[in-house]
């Protein structure tokens, strides 16, 4: 049943941001993989190139993934890098809101909003 293709992560540099597209399920089974993908992102982005974590195609977000987002957000803050989460769907928003993380993270509704210039 598990084909180890539950999660894919892709990086993209646009004029506006370093975008990390996270696609699939974020849970205990995939959080190690996601953690590895998140390593050093705060150094690949910069104070002039914000980091956007695109979760619009995340179909399941468990608490194991929330910790990774919070850690990454803290590392970005320490490095003076803006980090935005493009939530994009109800499953992600529900998890973020229920845990109060919409107050801690900078969450925008979709990827277009995250890539608007002059933030």
């Amino acid at each position, binding site marked *: 049943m*598990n084909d180890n293709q539950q999660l894919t992560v892709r990086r993209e540099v646009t004029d506006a941001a370093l975008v990390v597209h996270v696609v699939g399920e974020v849970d205990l089974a995939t959080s190690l993989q996601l953690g590895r993908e998140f390593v050093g992102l705060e150094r690949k982005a910069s104070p002039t190139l914000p980091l956007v974590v695109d979760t619009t195609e995340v179909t399941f977000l*468990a608490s194991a993934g929330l910790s990774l987002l919070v850690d990454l957000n803290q590392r970005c803050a320490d490095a003076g890098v803006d980090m935005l989460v493009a939530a994009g769907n109800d499953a992600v928003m529900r998890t973020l809101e229920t845990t109060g993380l919409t107050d801690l993270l900078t969450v925008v509704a979709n990827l277009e909003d995250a890539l608007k210039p002059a933030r």
Partner: protein
Amino acid sequence: MVSGRELRRRVNAQADSLVDARCALTEWALAVGMPTNQRGDLVLAAYEAMANAAEHAYRGQGGIIELHARATAGGVVVTVVDHGVWRPPPDHKGIRGRGIPLIEGLSHRSTVMPGEEGTTVVMTWAAPDP
């Protein structure tokens, strides 16, 4: 809501097995006619209870988690039982510890009962008004 239907699974407390259990629960919730938004809440809350057991009660060493879901006319009850050693959620929320808030926040009612022989988590969702 289709009452009387039950799902009963013995789940290995390992990340891959939890994925299978989550799929089974999703199909079951669909079959008993839970509304879409409740279904998402149920699957995530139950997953967090199982993940908590795998990570904290069994500390990644494996063990058996008993998953039980039952639909009644009044709603749905999900029970997750482990036979590991309870550890209270860490005060520091930076690393872990968002599982319990999800269980509490996504269910209509929940209880987490630690005991000497394991932990029982019971979560309920009331049937929506017709």
